[in-house]
């Protein structure tokens, strides 16, 4: 696999040849064909009617088989089965043919990590938009204290769709686009360790997203994103969409994590020692460990649930010797690390960006690494705090309360590093920097309220209320989505060679920051006043506050429209050109030309210093401070 070999231009094939080849069109057709084949086989196996029947195991068999075969057909259409089939007969296929060129490579199997990164960005962006629309609909319903726009079942489905899509798709929200694109560049590698697996993780996620969306055709699901038993077992066929969605997300997560770990451990450039590894890569590593270990437990749990719904096992069915608490325990064994799967990449982005905009070295590099690895480790020992009010043995509560409170220590390390880096820095308030600073504010509130609800007596009062909802929205939206936007504004100029309009970007930031807080801060109050989650009607004395929240949520949604308008204007219509290194970053990814060549580096970079030596006496390291706003 020499550099020159992989950069050879491929001859353009005729249109008809491209249409019938392995591409998205073929994938969709085979996916639909596989879906109906699975449905047919399911019906043949179980003898069920072809018509939709609520809560009939046979229909669940058909639908689950349809989804599985649909996904297999979809992947086959994209060409994912070619490699395993070739290897089965001992034929070694080439990666080169999959690296491709032109815009069509974004619509199929491509093993170029940069293409996969952009695919992830667009794909996840699409599903984020759908999930955000669900949130708007939820707030429409909550304008009134009694069901108005939707009935209770529809409302529950909306809540479930919103939560599940956000939690599922955003597990790869930063690792998908930004780690796939930038980790190889940051470590001086030409591609990921397992490029086909990298592409597979993306397309699995897309298939999962559409499967979850299809739940509306099968009655939705009433469980929220947690899929709790016994509701899970009792739910109509829409629950099967949830099960397959999260199982596919789990597979995608585990494979993504495995690939990231293998890449970072084995493919670092000469001189890139562990102590010189960019802090973003450390956060990716810590997240990947969680993904590889936690996601398989989720997959197993969902497969058990699928068995309960189809072949009448009784893992979670009390009458057959099972226990719904088993599901709750297993789910949260995955679910709490999942929270850190969402949060850790945010830590990494903020710590990566702050030195660039403070123009000084990252303070407490080793402390930050210890913090992220500490969070990873401890996150496996806190899951029962989600079950404090479920009737668990009271003797267990102190341990889980303490372990949850202890996890705030390594998280505190991160804040210490943020503060230390900002201290006496020559800060420039660019849009990515503003998002990082907003992250600091939001995540602090999310973190402190987390310590509060980790306390068993406090949790007994706030569990299942809007208080907890406010807490995790501050943690995940405030921690992840703000970091996600910081990464977009920071790295899109590298990914596209184009920049965002600064004025619109700042309008987006300020509206998002203000309306995020005016939306979610009052939820703490609503929670303290006893407003329960996932219930469509509420007490009339809570109407004014709920209307305030809804109106601010719409304004928060409008701030996203500003972002979309900016993206369309800056990147599509005006195509504003970006400087080669607009932030004067020292990190390796900015040292490559834009657009980055297929193999990233013509010559192997040899790393002889760390990426955060801003302001050191070496003139080449220092760089000039950025002009305000620039």
């Amino acid at each position, binding site marked *: *696999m020499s550099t020159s070999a992989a950069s050879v231009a491929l001859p353009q094939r005729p249109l008809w040849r491209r249409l019938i080849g392995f591409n998205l069109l073929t994938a969709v057709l085979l996916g639909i064909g596989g879906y109906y084949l699975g449905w047919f086989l399911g019906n043949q196996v179980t003898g069920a009617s072809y018509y939709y029947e609520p809560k009939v195991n046979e229909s669940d068999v058909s639908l689950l088989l349809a989804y599985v075969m649909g996904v297999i057909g979809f992947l086959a259409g994209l060409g994912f089965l070619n490699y395993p089939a070739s*290897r089965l007969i001992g034929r070694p296929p080439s990666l080169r043919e999959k690296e491709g060129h032109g815009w069509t490579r974004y619509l199929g199997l491509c093993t170029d990590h940069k293409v996969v990164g952009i695919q992830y960005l667009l794909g996840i962006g699409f599903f984020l938009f759908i999930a955000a629309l669900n949130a708007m609909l939820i707030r429409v319903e909550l304008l009134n204290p009694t069901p108005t726009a939707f009935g209770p079942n529809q409302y529950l489905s909306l809540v479930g769709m919103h939560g599940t899509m956000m939690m599922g798709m955003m597990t790869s929200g930063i690792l998908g686009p930004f780690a796939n694109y930038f980790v190889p560049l940051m470590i001086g590698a030409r591609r990921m360790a*397992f490029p086909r697996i990298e592409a597979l993780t993306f397309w699995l996620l897309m298939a999962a997203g559409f499967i979850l969306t299809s739940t509306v055709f099968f009655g939705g699901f009433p469980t929220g994103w947690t899929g709790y038993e016994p509701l899970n077992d009792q739910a109509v066929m829409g629950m099967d969409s949830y099960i397959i969605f999260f199982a596919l997300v789990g597979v995608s997560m585990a494979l993504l994590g495995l690939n990231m770990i293998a890449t970072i451990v084995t*493919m670092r450039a000469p001189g890139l020692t562990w102590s010189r590894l960019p802090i973003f890569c450390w956060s990716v590593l810590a997240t990947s460990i969680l993904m590889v270990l*936690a996601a398989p*437990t989720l997959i197993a749990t969902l497969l058990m649930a699928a068995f309960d719904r189809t072949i009448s096992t*009784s893992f979670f069915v009390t009458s057959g*010797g099972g226990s719904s608490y088993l599901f709750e325990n297993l789910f949260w064994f995955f679910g709490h690390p999942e929270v850190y799967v969402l949060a850790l990449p945010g830590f990494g982005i903020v710590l990566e960006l702050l030195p660039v905009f403070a123009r000084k070295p990252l303070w407490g590099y080793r402390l930050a690494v210890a913090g992220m690895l500490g969070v990873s480790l401890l996150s496996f020992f806190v899951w029962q705090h989600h079950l404090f009010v479920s009737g668990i043995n009271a003797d267990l509560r102190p341990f889980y309360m303490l372990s949850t409170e202890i996890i705030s220590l390594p998280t505190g390390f991160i804040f210490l590093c943020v503060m230390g880096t900002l201290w006496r820095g020559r800060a420039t308030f660019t849009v990515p920097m503003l998002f990082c600073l907003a992250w600091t504010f939001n995540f602090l509130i999310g973190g402190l309220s987390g310590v509060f609800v980790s306390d068993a007596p406090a949790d007994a009062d706030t569990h299942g209320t809007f208080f907890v909802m406010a807490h995790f929205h501050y943690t995940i939206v405030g921690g992840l989505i703000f970091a996600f936007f910081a990464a977009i504004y920071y790295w899109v100029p590298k990914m596209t060679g184009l920049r965002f309009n600064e004025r619109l970007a700042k309008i987006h930031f300020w509206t998002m920051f203000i309306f995020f807080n005016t939306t979610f801060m009052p939820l703490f109050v609503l929670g303290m006043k006893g407003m329960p989650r996932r219930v469509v009607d509420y007490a009339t004395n809570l109407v004014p506050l709920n209307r305030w929240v809804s109106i601010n949520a719409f304004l928060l949604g409008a701030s996203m429209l500003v972002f979309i308008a900016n993206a369309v204007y800056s990147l599509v219509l005006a195509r504003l050109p970006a400087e080669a290194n607009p932030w004067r970053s*020292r990190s390796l990814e900015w040292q490559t030309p834009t657009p980055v060549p297929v193999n990233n580096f013509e010559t192997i970079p*040899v790393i002889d210093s760390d990426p955060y030596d801003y302001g050191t006496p070496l003139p080449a390291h220092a760089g000039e401070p950025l002009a305000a706003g620039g």
Partner: protein
Amino acid sequence: MAEASEHLGAMAAVALGVEIPPEPPEVGARQHYLAARLLAGATSFFFLAFVFAYFYLRSLNVEHMWRPKGVGPEQGYGVAILICTLASGALAILAARMLGREQRSWVRAASGALGLGLAVVVLQCLEWATQNFGPASGAYASVYCGWTCFYVLAVIGTLYWLETHVATELRARRRPAATGGDIFEPDRLIKPGLDAAVFYWGYLVGLGVLTYIVLYLV
């Protein structure tokens, strides 16, 4: 590169001028080594859910439905499956060692491992077909069916992995020049790949022993 460096006024973090050599085989070997271990870690956490379910439901014994009277696996099948699993694992390890000593007959040992692995699958299917309980016969039956089902799927996947190396070797022997793509030299691929597959198969053998102890003996 030149464009970026010019813009920045030379970045000291990057020293230029070293040509990229072809991907060293050690990198691929390390990737296989690491991936197999990570995969074993992921598999452990997957089956941990079943182990947890086993002990959790057994200790609760809800409605006395943990293991109703008459529900129990066939010991004969269990022992036969265990023996085939152990023998297959031993042959796979032998094959990897023979390849390490560059003995071409490693293919025979690997083929034996494949055959015995297939026997594990067949025996398990036979047991499912003949056992006196089904997945709906209580909590133990649920755990048994789920655990063994996914264990067999893991075995099939690993057998496929082993088979790809045997197939690559046989093809390379028949048509030495017909290689290419990202696998320029099959020998470079087979050794680390086989080591990784054998490691994972060995791990699954260990898991098979645990399966036997928990599901058949405890």
